[in-house]
């Protein structure tokens, strides 16, 4: 890198590196040089290009800028994901779905390859809990199934699947899945880590 970047202070970059699973390079935009054939903007670059007029280039003072959900869910990584709204909501501080840069980085950090299983399980639980009552109840499951199969299962099949899932995974018998049940079930899934992963 030719010129010294002025988007973040060194201290901020260190903080990002210690608190997330990304490196400094990945946080910054990668290309300041001319003549690079493929600009591959990383996290800050991606965040900036969604709304160049709103997101400042200078983050040294930690500006309080949030991007609304509509912009975030149009990102190519999230666009085809049936749970995109829930993902963004789970990581947003205000619960409405607007992400500050910190939330944005946090989201992709948890969804990256290096995040441990427990952390991913926590956020996966949050994502599938549509009514945010700390349980995955039958209505949450129905919504999940509808999103997964694009509403192509019959109502009877959906009910049957929901019943069977709760039957299988519910350990404490309260008719819905708490986090312990969910985590227990996830621990038996060999491919959870590879499917719950977005590459940016």
């Amino acid at each position, binding site marked *: 890198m030719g010129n010294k970047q002025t988007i973040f202070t060194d201290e901020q970059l260190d903080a990002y590196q210690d608190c997330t699973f990304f*490196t400094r390079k990945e946080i910054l935009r990668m290309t300041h040089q001319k003549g690079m054939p493929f600009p591959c903007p990383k996290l800050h670059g991606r965040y900036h290009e969604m709304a160049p007029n709103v997101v400042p280039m200078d983050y040294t003072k930690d500006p309080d800028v949030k991007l609304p959900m509509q912009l975030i869910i149009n990102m190519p990584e999230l666009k*085809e994901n049936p749970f995109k709204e829930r993902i963004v909501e789970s990581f947003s501080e205000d619960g409405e779905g607007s992400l*500050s840069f910190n939330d944005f980085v946090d989201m992709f950090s948890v969804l990256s390859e290096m995040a441990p299983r427990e952390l991913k399980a*926590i956020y996966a639980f949050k994502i599938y809990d549509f009514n945010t009552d700390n349980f995955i109840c039958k209505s949450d499951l129905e919504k999940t199934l509808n999103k*997964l199969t694009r509403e192509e299962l019959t109502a009877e099949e959906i009910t049957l*699947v929901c019943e069977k899932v709760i039957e*299988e995974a519910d350990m404490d018998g309260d008719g819905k899945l708490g986090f312990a049940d969910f985590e227990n079930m996830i621990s*038996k*899934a060999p491919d959870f880590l590879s499917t719950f992963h977005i590459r940016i």
Partner: protein
Amino acid sequence: MSRPPAVTLQVSEDAESDGQEPSPCNEGALHTSFRQLIQEQSSLAEAAAALELQVQAGGREPPEPWPAGWPAPEQDQERAGYSAATLRVLASMPSRTIGRSRGAIISQYCNRTARLRRRGSRPPLQQLSRAARPSLRQHRPDTDPAAATLQEKRSLLVKELLSLSPAQRGHVLLSVPLCLAEKRTLRQELMGQRGSPGEGARRGAPFSPCSRLEYHVMLGCRGLWYGLLSLLPAAQPWHRSLKQIGSRFGSSVLSYFLFLKTLLMFNVVLFLLLLVFVVALQAAYPPAPASRRPFTGLELLTGAGYFTHSLLYYGYYSNGTLNEPCAARPNCSAAAPPLPYNMPLAYVFTVGVSFFLTCILLVYSMSRSFGESYRVGGPAGDLAIKVFCAWDFKVVRRRWAKLQSENIRTQLKELLAERRSRCRPRSPRRQLERVAVHLLAWGLSLGTVLGCVVAVHYFSGHLHAVQQGAQARAGSAWRREAVPLALPLLVALMHAAVPHLYNVLAAWEEWDSPVREVYVAVCRNLLLKMVVLGLLCYQWLSRGGVCSSEACWETCVGQDLYRFVVMDFIFTLLDTVFGELLWRLVLEKRLKRRQRPEFDIARNVLELIYGQTLTWLGVLFSPLLPAVQIVKLLLLFYIKKTSLMQNCQSPSKPWQASHMSTVFITLLCFPSFLGAAIFLSYTVWSVKPSESCGPFQGMETIYESGKTWVNLLEKSNPNITWFTWIHQYLVENTFFLFLVSGGLLW
């Protein structure tokens, strides 16, 4: 006065969440005293359990925005008040609060790090407060995290973190499920505290230069490793085709294609070994040229003619040492010759080693496949995992997302159908009827097998007579070439026709469970194929069949096997064309039905296994047969895939394919590979090779070449008698071999 939260306390959760606490008591047993409390609380509606801590903080901390959708604190006002201490205790014990509030997470992690720190040592008895409930022993009021504000909780956590090692600290910072802003604040406090002279500086935090370098190196390696891993799917052949097939037709049809890929891998390994150690060297040092017949197209079908004296068959390979020293040959330069290569030894060792390697690969595939299909604790738990873990978040393109959605839908339907079919009661009379029907069907199928075997036996005898007659009469060359084709043709016809009979039988039997139906069909077809092959092997080895009058019987057997392989391929093609393409056209145009023919997985897989068995049987007699099989499998993949996409539909009775791959590999290992290995061992140990051709001319058995070599070694260098001792007592001792093979399988 704190506003009471609505927390539902459940006993099992306590025991589970506090599993790491060094408390000597069993938490679960003690909570009888909480029962009344539980009853009181369970009558309340569920609410976010984390609210109690926010609530207690009251107005002393900066107001945190309420997440949308959570009940506002005002609603809790009307609930009955519990004592603050009880609530504090309750609030800090169960770990249901998995990220709803910052304060809760901080307290939880504070406890966790405290436990981590205390794990090595138990607190001395004097310090334990004598509370009636052991779980309160560690909750002293002054350090009770639940009573603190957010800032106080944060400092508590920081204090706990500072007492950990730098690696643990970094790990906690990374894995705590807080938002990034909060993590940065924590980190800042950590740095601030560390900056003051004291423990932090001395401990060498994760932010020191050395460990940072380590950290970077580690990150770099990790990045490289993940980069390689991400390239791996792209490097796998047919990755995209397989994904397409899987998403359109489900995992059951996909298992056939995956099995084909596995077989291809086995053949490639086999072929490479033989190529490097046997074929290439013999090609470099060709023997004296025999009279070669001109190449006509028929050779590809019969394997005879031009191919008879070629690398394809056993008879071509020399029985001496290739590249002998100068004295043996009349005209060669006086330059020092390179190392002599003992062809017979190389031949038998390479075949042996390749079989051994195939055995190991098979056992490994089998164990991995078992591991995968049974890891999830059997069929229970599959559905939940499918719902939560099936969607691949990496899918970015619309078309693939749609395919993935279809795939998941198909799999869910499969699982449901399987569950549904499991529970259906039956009356005793009906059961008896069914047993009778099954017995009759089995009787019929066994009878068919017997009939086929007898037919093959008599036909082969008849052919032998005809061929002898044809040779005596010196008839047309075409006739001579065509006669050996008749037996493979008959066998292939049988294998094509009889499975349809079995399908009719299965339809008549009316199986309830589609899985069982498939297994029974597989068993019957397999029985037919293996019994017929067994008869043929017996004929080849006892030289009772077509090859008995040949001088070079091994080449003859090799040619026979080549013909069988080619015939098998031709009939598979015909079956695809007639069974799938023509049938679809008939259904659409003539009968005007929209239904397409189904892809019969069991039959196709058995055909693959049969072809592979033929290859393994023929490796000793025709070292290039694996190459033929590779070509055949490659062509088969594309033909089957095209036919599948154009003509077939996914199976109407969707059944779970997760165990089918295991079954296929097991079938490949046990009747197929084991039979071939037994055949090979018998040939090597007991059958007399021909006198005039091949690497083992004139010896008593093929195995003798190995023995001769060991004797030679002993003579040349008396110091290695230990080797001959091993050879004599271990390898020759069959009991020991059985032990070793048993141990390997275990």
